[in-house]
């Protein structure tokens, strides 16, 4: 299998998902390299969320394999996949409403950091490296001013940033973002684009699933297109734009922006 760019961090091999008799995903294959920024697009019902759920272990696959960092992870539970550094967000954000923003991040960071000793755990101390890492993420995503508030009190855009921050707090090697720009205004969206580019530059690979064509086409190095559960095109944004099948399936229907 051809692995363009750097050595493949995530490699999806002929992944299929069925809901009863319906093929939601049919033998989809693609790769994401270390520190690469890859887009996954497709019209509504194309199987994008199904694909994410299958990759991250929230949906059983009917065939094919998922490799992460060289190892087959088909049999791993969602938290084990996250533990390897393969972290996702949710379209519905799914924040921990009982925790403050900082704690939302902390709980994700804590899950992957070294286990605290019994004495530390009893006294409620957290490891020093975790604290440092958390501050970094809070600065990066811009959560400093709202760190002590709860998700329920925040604006939609802020909640999106918390979801992203929580994923980054888990120290991902690859972060899989499910519609991170949905409901954001243009300014917020372009800030997100800048942030994602910076992330990739720091070595964190990003698999971006979104409706916002300008975001995906403007930030991603490579783009894969799903339609009716099939991967219909892969390539650079320019190549994908030029693909007649994609035009018909997606851009033609949704209007090329």
């Amino acid at each position, binding site marked *: 299998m051809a692995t363009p760019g750097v050595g493949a961090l995530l490699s999806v091999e002929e992944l299929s998902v069925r809901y009863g008799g319906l093929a939601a995903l049919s033998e989809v294959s693609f790769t994401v390299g270390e520190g690469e920024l890859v887009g996954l697009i497709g019209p509504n019902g194309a199987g994008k969320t199904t694909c994410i759920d299958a990759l*991250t272990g*929230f949906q059983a696959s009917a065939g094919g394999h998922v490799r992460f960092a060289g190892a087959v992870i088909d049999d791993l*539970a*969602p*938290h*084990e996949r*996250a*533990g390897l550094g393969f*972290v*996702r*967000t*949710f379209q519905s954000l*799914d*924040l*921990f*409403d*009982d*925790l403050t923003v900082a*704690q939302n991040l*902390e*709980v*994700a960071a*804590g*899950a*992957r950091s070294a286990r*605290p000793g019994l004495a530390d*755990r*009893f*006294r*409620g101390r*957290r490891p020093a490296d975790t604290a440092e890492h958390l501050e970094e993420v809070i600065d990066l995503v811009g959560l400093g001013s709202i760190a002590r508030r709860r998700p329920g009190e925040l604006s939609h855009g802020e909640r999106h940033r918390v979801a992203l921050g*929580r*994923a980054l707090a*888990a120290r991902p090697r690859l972060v899989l973002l499910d519609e991170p720009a949905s409901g954001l205004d243009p300014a917020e969206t372009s800030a997100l684009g800048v942030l994602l580019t910076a992330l990739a530059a720091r070595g964190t690979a990003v698999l971006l699933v979104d409706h916002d064509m300008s975001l995906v086409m403007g930030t991603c190095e490579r783009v894969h297109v799903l339609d009716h559960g099939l991967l219909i095109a892969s390539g650079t944004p320019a190549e994908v734009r030029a693909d007649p099948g994609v035009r018909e399936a997606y851009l033609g229907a949704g209007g090329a922006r």
Partner: protein
Amino acid sequence: MGAYLGYLLAGLGGGAVVASLALGLVLTWRTSRVVNFSHAAMGTYLAFATFEFRDRGDLVLPVAGIPARIHLLPTPTLAASLVFAVILSAAVGAAVFWLVFRPLRRAHPLARVVASLGLYLYFSEITRLRFPTAGATAVTRYPVLPEHTVKVWGTGVSANRLWLAVLVMAATAGLATVFARTRFGLATRAAAGNEKAAVLAGVSPDRVGLVNWMVASVLAGLAVLLIEPIAGLDPATTSLLVVPALAAALAGGLASFWVTTLAGLSIGMVQSLILGWAVRPDTNWIPSWIPVTGLQQAVPLAVVLAALAWRGDPLPTRGAVLEGELPASPEPRRVTLWAAAGTAAGVAGLFTFSAPYRQALIVSLIAVVLSLSIVVITGYVGQISLAQLAFAGVAGFTAVDLAADGLSFLPAVVVAVAVATLVGVAVGVPALRVRGMSLAVATMALAVAIEQLVLGSEALSGGAGGRSVPRPYLLGVDVGISAPGADNFRPAFGLVALAAAVGSAVLVANLRRRPTGLRWLAVRANERAAAAAGIDVARVKLGAFALSSALAGLAGALTAFATTALSTSSFMVVGSLVALAMTYLTGIAGVTGAVLAGLLAQSGLVTVLGRGGTAGGGGDHTFLVSGLALVVMAVVAPEGLTGLVRRGWDRLSARPAGVGGRSAVTSAVATDGEVER
């Protein structure tokens, strides 16, 4: 073989009642997404009220604080009594729906569970108070159905068993037809499946709910009424008929009327068969140390576990307009300070109080530990367990058993706690597949089975008289609860209980602060997101089950040594319900709530202070009051007392953040709050 057939046929009666109750549970679930734990307790009240009407022509109202009875008719006939039963049942069902479960439609499942537990306590207690002869069981009073013997394949069986089975089948056929064929059935299914869509489609969920609750209540009332000539009536045991009924309803996936009815009939028949095996000398292969009632109670548990294993989680709670949240869990602050203050107050109390107050304080301290176990599993991790007192009982009797064998106090307690922890984890493993209401149902079935099968076993619990508890020595010091002579409820034991309570509270408070507590709350808030954030949800839940059952075990072991003779009555299922109720009332998501729950516990410090020092009296209305308070709190203030106080405090102290609607008075007070801060 003929004898077995006889037992099977005789079991049709009990089975029909289980099925009838289960049909009501299915109806109310499909309507309100609530598993109504109080269903059989309501039925019990309704049956007693009907008997009272038949006897005296009086309507006995199920409401505390107003005139208890209204005279309606001089000499009601049987037919009039049945009409009365139907009308009263429908009215009570309507009231329960309208006042309790309709407002709770959008609340967290825990709020609905708690409300139904509150109703359970309320109806059990109102029955006990309003019908003082209720304890007199097995008096055949009103055989409504014919009782002559009928031959079936050469085996004699009382006709009323067959009649009951036929009636419940007819009711099932009726319900199945109505739900499948009529507009009303369609409306119910629409309202339960997706309330928002149902509203848009012009279906009134309120009207649908009202009718279904009335039907369910009538089924419950008639079921208990008709079982009375067969099994007698005892408020406590009849109320617990809800457990086999829940099992049958779960077997039917809380949806299928026919499967539910068949499961109910089967449960009754198998239970009857077990009784047959046990009483017949020629077939008695059941070891004598296994209590028969326990084996009978294991039947519903087996059905519940099988149904949950087979169907996975049959109780998805999506589809409601909005799923409410559990009470917020604030981070514990100044743990050391509070621990020191609590210790000082406890020591002062133990050495200055007179004996009755010392006893009450010790009761409260042990109750704090039990409540902490509920805070951990239910408040922090969101898993509803109704088996906490069963864990406590296992530990209590283990400790006594070990101590009787010569093990000293501390090792006995440690081993007992370890055993309770193992039992808790063993329960936790299957519970991983189950959440919300299903878990509450499964743990209640488990608690009843443990109560009857393990704690009911004479070999372990010493039967009615209980087991005598050896005198405990800690590091050579006598920490016994009583001393020969007048000195009772010794401070020495009180100090042990105080150390356990303060130690447990500090442990839980510190674990609640990061990182363990954050994982607990993350799992509670959103299991899917927790897994995505790298949290091993199963491990977190099992850890919480282990800690929770260990704390319950500690409470149980202390309960054991706080008496001189330990009996099963200390660990009844109702106690678990009351403990959950109390903890929910005071604030289930925090250590403060557990401490308050302990102080307010039955025979605890507050109740004894309220009675002016007289220990335990006949007029103890704890269950009635806590049941009622539970329902009211679940409806109006799901965050509990501590939550109410905190919310009030926050409103006072955070002046600029106030969201309108504040009066001049609160503004003025707010200024003071500002200074305090």
